[in-house]
């Protein structure tokens, strides 16, 4: 399956991926209108320390701890992708604790949110990848 991979060597820590992620989730037409005066809560995060930076989002693990930890059956596999059914999620956030990458976070609605490779918005392709100015984030089969 094609996954989002990050090459830390080329990551500039510009945080554009976070904004493209947040914008994609709004399904809007204009980033300025969609994200004006909003504190974004993206599903991809830049980790940075001591001059090293890279973006982290869901790895779509083969043996996902988050799915095992989910008490309500909200997190599950569809093909090879890990998806979340927010209707079923009870907001216990066990998945947040279980994910070794810190790729799951609470959403504004109290339920968990995670990267679903932009399949649930109108983008059609991961927008973090499309918007990365330095080719640091790629979407490919490995």
């Amino acid at each position: 399956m094609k996954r989002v991979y990050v090459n830390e060597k080329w990551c500039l820590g510009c945080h554009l991926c976070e904004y493209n992620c947040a914008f994609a989730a709004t399904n809007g037409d204009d980033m300025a209108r969609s994200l004006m005066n909003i504190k974004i809560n993206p599903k991809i995060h830049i980790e940075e320390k001591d001059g090293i930076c890279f973006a982290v989002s869901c790895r779509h693990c083969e043996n996902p701890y988050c799915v095992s930890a989910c008490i309500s059956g909200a997190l599950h596999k569809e093909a090879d992708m890990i998806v979340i059914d927010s209707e079923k999620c009870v907001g216990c956030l066990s998945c947040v604790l279980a994910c070794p990458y810190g790729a799951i976070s609470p959403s504004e609605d109290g339920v968990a949110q995670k990267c679903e490779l932009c399949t649930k918005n109108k983008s059609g392709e991961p927008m973090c990848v499309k918007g990365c100015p330095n080719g640091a984030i790629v979407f490919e089969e490995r």
Partner: protein
Amino acid sequence: MAIDYIFPDYEVIRNKDRCISCRVCERQCSNGVHTFLEKENKMVSDDTKCVNCHRCVCLCPTHALKIVKSDNTFKENGNWKNSTIKEIYRQAGTGGVLLSSMGNPKDYPVYFDRILLNASQVTNPSIDPLREPMETRSYLGARPKTIQRDEKGRLINNLPPHLELSMPIMFSAMSYGSLSYNAHEALARAAEALGICYNTGEGGLHEDFYKYGKNTIVQVASGRFGVHKDYLNSGCAVEIKIGQGAKPGIGGHLPGAKILGDVSRTRMIPEGSDAVSPAPHHDIYSIEDLRQLVYSIKEATNYTKPVIVKIAAVHNVSAIASGIARSGADIIAIDGFRGGTGAAPTRIRDNVGIPIELALASVDKRLRDEGIRDNVSLVVGGSIRSSADLFKAICLGADACYIGTAALLAMGCHLCRTCMTGKCNWGIATQNPELVKRLNPNISYERLVNMLVAWNHEVEEMMGGMGINSIEALKGNRLMLRGVGLNEKELEILGIKHAGE
């Protein structure tokens, strides 16, 4: 605080209806123009620090930024322009020589823009390059003077070493040190992919790039930085740099602050020491001396590589070229007064040298008149901005062109002309690792390849329009050129007729 006499050149205009305070501009500006005010949740900018490099403009995801020229002005004066007044203030404040980067930006005539090309109509058919083969492959080097045969009458191959290029373009000399590692990698990989050459400049060749040797011209300049036997033998040609169009007659100076780690190792000088290239080569004070260096290099490379001598276009360029053509050099490279640089004294850059169009025409004529044109190939640089400039240069007698600034633009350079600060926001003219990584060679090499593939298509289209299917038939073909708005003397030097003649 003392009075600051100089007002900012540019204003950063932020569209408040579009700025989402994502702080990308702040993170991307190495000059510290943008700041985020946490309490007010708003971005502000300090115009005094802006160099107009457009990094923030290009990366702003909502297109909320633009940079405009400040309309603040001194009292209008045709003689004392704003820029002239500011330069006086700057010098009065610092006591220093003014420094500038990239090519001469002054409003001198651009002869390429006053030359028009011919095309076929009725009496000679044009050629469609999409349907018929077109040849842009070029060979650089001395041509054999005689046909030699062995005792059985078979041809003896007496061809001196040549450079083979898939198109008559090469990347001009830009050193590792003045450019970043990633920029050099992009140039090297693009040259390999295109089947052309790039040039190390005077900074030596990084050990990682020896593998691109067959597409590398290694340079020997007055500082002799990074020159050793393996270096000379690693490339496909050796270039002796006498002068550079942006600063004819003077040397170079890479500050010690940039001589770190790999740059120091590649240049073979201690870390932190200034790399000062003398103005002249101290062993070359005549054509005879030049001949000694040419043949020293040929000995060191076992006569397998062509030797290029690069000079700046100055007043006596044709006489100098005539001497070089007799020195044993295989290729003469001439750099016009608009050629770029990482740093040069402003007065030198803006006032010394002559236009490449005139220098090229006069050198080509002189060498032909003296019957020594076949001793050498001619390569010209100094602001070849498009395939049209390239095409016209070839018609004026060049065998190939060097492009520097155009290549940097393809990699993202926005010609802000502040290379000398070492804070290039595009990761090109800097050694700061945080900035260097902004230039991903995987992207930039592709952009370089794209640009030159496009240029080559355009050259083929123009050749086809003239009914010419080989670049060799175009070389020195001045009948294909006509001048517009040029006086008799200019036309005479260029060796072309006026439009309508």
